[in-house]
């Protein structure tokens, strides 16, 4: 049992800007939220990325819904972000590579696991400890 959860992160040290736990979220979906966009826009000068959870374990990757949201948010902001996605025991980062609109690459970021930031543990707790 799990429920998708998100967190908006700031640079340079991935400080938490906003926990995203909208009504209507489920094990496989975070619904569209104007509130989330408002928070992203209000914090556009410092936002570094948005992490969210996927159900299950093992290495995951972005869904088509994820990719189209990445592209739309970046088009509105006028700059690129990092998009971590986690499972119960793994995490990947997504970043636009181009040249096409939805050409995102997924990569492991082992130093994240070594530093084990507080937001990562909290995102797992909110997503999987139900």
């Amino acid at each position, binding site marked *: 049992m799990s429920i998708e959860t*998100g967190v908006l992160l700031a640079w340079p040290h991935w400080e938490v800007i906003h926990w995203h736990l909208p009504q209507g979220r489920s094990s*496989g979906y975070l619904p*569209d939220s*104007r509130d989330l966009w408002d928070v992203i826009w209000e914090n556009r000068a410092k936002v570094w990325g948005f992490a*969210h959870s996927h159900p299950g374990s093992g290495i995951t990757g972005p869904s088509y*819904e994820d990719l189209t949201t990445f592209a*739309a948010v970046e088009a*509105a*902001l006028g700059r690129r972000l990092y998009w971590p996605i986690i499972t119960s025991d793994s995490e990947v980062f997504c970043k636009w590579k181009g040249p096409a609109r939805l050409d995102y690459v997924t990569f492991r970021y082992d130093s994240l696991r070594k530093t084990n930031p507080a937001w990562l543990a909290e995102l797992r707790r909110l997503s999987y400890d139900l």
Partner: protein
Amino acid sequence: MNMEAKVIVTYAGQTGDLPMPVDYDASDADIRRWVTESLVTGSVTGIGAVPDADLTDFIVDRSEANTERAYPLILCRPKTAFG
């Protein structure tokens, strides 16, 4: 009677208004098309021309007039759903 709405769009790190109001009940597709054309031609107040503007995954968010705002408002913003 058709109501006219102000349209605000956020794109390329800027926020601006369409130069003319639109029918509040216009379809999402029409509004996205008008906003895209305005961005491409540089006619959105507050946003410079964006020749490759693409609003494919933008949401058309409508708010009726209220006690604080006498006119209906349409926001064109990115979707924020994740799967």
